[in-house]
């Protein structure tokens, strides 16, 4: 790992840790802005979907990767955001209000589930959020007067300053903009006391508390913030699919979201982006190679979920740091070449620390 020589306190809190990063990310941004000009509609739409999942991934990463609170119910927040967006637009509320509103409503929902689950951690929280997710999913199905029930809800095209932001390109640019905003927000959180409090709660609640961190307050903030960001993703998701169906927001979606942060690499924003790439590109690449596979395998209806499950299992067994961990190892390998030593990343043998309180 490169550690820049530190001469100023400002160095630690700069937005760009390394000056060269500014140019690389700038180039990436220019490339991303240019894609819709040169690429077909299909790929623009797929990339927009990737951005939306990356936004949700960043939201969940703050909660699970940084605060250490597991949520298996984030599909609920995506759903609440999406339905808020669709319902408000249908009532004629302008787009520049509906999107922040869907973040706000979802944020409150996050606080509402965060407060009663304050005392829970680990496993219990996972189960509680799983239940919360299924309850919200059922409500979206059965509350027909508001959500349209099984028939779903059409989403009106958004207008911003008289411009119709419709079609894949509109969603693409909106999602890119929101993704940039969300990353900026997350980086701000992580370099201020708030982010450090999250990390402290993740690593040791008892000593976080004796360092003056109000566990209840910060866990609630983390839930609210994570839910609000996921709600933003939900609002964009509504425009992405253009017709909301309640069964889109089920347990499987929650598992997909958690897989994003897990396979991407817990505790890093890069991980959230990598995870979203994995999640969205996997089905595409399977579709591409499907025709070349032997018939029994290529026609297998469960091919995608089984590969998905297999990668998840292999990742946890052999690369618990996720794609981001692998990426750092590859970077370190080239940086130190030929002085690479395998032990640099060897995990320390940690004794099985009981998470069961006895």
């Amino acid at each position, binding site marked *: 790992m490169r550690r820049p020589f530190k001469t100023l306190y400002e160095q630690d809190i700069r937005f760009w840790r390394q000056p060269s990063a500014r140019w690389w990310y700038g180039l990436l941004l220019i490339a991303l802005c240019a894609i819709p000009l040169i690429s077909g509609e299909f790929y623009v739409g797929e990339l927009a979907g990737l951005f939306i999942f990356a936004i949700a991934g960043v939201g969940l990463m703050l909660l699970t990767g940084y605060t250490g609170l597991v949520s298996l119910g984030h599909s609920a927040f995506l759903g609440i955001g999406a339905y808020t967006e669709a319902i408000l637009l249908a009532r004629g509320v302008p787009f520049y209000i509906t999107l922040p509103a869907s973040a706000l409503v979802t944020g409150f929902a996050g606080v509402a589930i965060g407060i009663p689950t304050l005392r829970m951690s680990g496993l219990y929280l996972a189960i*509680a959020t799983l239940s919360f997710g*299924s309850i919200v999913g059922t409500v979206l199905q059965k509350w027909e007067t508001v959500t349209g029930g099984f028939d779903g809800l059409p989403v009106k095209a958004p207008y911003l300053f008289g411009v119709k932001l419709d079609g894949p390109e509109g969603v693409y640019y909106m999602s890119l903009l929101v993704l940039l905003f969300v990353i900026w927000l997350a980086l701000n959180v992580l370099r201020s006391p708030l982010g450090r409090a999250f990390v402290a709660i993740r690593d040791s609640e008892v000593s976080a508390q004796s360092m003056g961190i109000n566990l209840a307050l910060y866990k609630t903030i983390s839930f609210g913030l994570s839910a609000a960001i996921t709600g933003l993703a939900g609002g964009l998701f509504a425009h992405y699919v253009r017709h909301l169906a309640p069964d889109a927001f089920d347990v499987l979606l929650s598992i997909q979201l958690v897989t994003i942060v*897990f396979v991407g690499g817990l505790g890093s924003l890069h991980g959230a982006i990598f995870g979203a790439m994995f999640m969205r590109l996997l089905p595409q690449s399977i579709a591409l190679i499907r025709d070349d596979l032997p018939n029994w395998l290529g026609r297998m209806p*469960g091919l995608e*979920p*089984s590969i*998905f*499950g297999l990668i998840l*299992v292999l990742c946890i*067994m052999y690369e618990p740091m996720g794609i981001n961990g692998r990426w750092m190892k590859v970077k370190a390998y080239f940086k130190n070449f030929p002085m690479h030593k395998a032990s640099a990343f060897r995990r320390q043998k940690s004794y099985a620390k009981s998470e069961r309180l006895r």
Partner: protein
Amino acid sequence: MDDAARLLQLVVNGAASGCIYGLIAFGFVLIYKATEMVNFAQGDIMMLGAFVAYSFIHQFGLNYWVGFGLAILVTALFGFLLDAIVLRRVIGQPQFAVVMLTLGLAFIFRAGAGLAWTYDSVGFNTPFTNKTVNLGGLVLGQDNVSILVGTLVLCGVLYLFFSRTRLGVAMQAASQNQLAAYYMGIPVRRIFSLIWAISAGVAAVAAVLLAPVSMIDVNMGFLGIKAFAAAVLGGFGSIPGAVIGGVIVGVVEQLSGYFLPPGFQDVTSNIVLLAVLILRPEGLFGKTIRKRV
């Protein structure tokens, strides 16, 4: 039929499906107590058990009881290998990594079952199908009664196993203190694999008991989510608690389907679960313990 009889009927039906939740929860709790892992694939192991039993009884035409026994054995062996090959490698990783691992395994199991058997629902007939027993005017389906009786018998057998046999006592020791048990010469790793085998076997029993009432299909493992409610209600550390919790969840679910507007039945178990976690996180039969610093 008068109201009291109908109510009683509902309670019995609820208790029957509750027994299934309880048996799946049994598997969660047994593994959790011993290894601190939570097996989110328990419901899907049950699904595999159901398909295995289907193969033995309907495809190979074996006698119901022989097929039943073989299905238990095969599923238990599967559980044993699952631990020995996969889960043993992630010991010491955070609890949540194991949750994700088992979720991933569940995906593979579902796809594997779809490939090996079918993605369609299949029916499952037993000697009890479409027969009823008449208990003093109360008419009950034999398949429901078989679930209740089967659960009782299984619990009795397992109780005797854990309290009377050498192996059972060794398992108790290993789950209370791994290190101490290891120093006393108990082969803790093999014991853990055997515990996975037992919970897979219990899941197979649940599967065979459940199969005649519901259909067999690859998604029947989602029942596991309801079993969480059972386990949590029982305190997540208590095996009898898990079974009793399952019965309570089953009965409440049936009654809410009868008394509350449609739609509520689907979420009853979730609401029960959330309520218990929020109001009494230690469950009905557990006790709270704090971390020591």
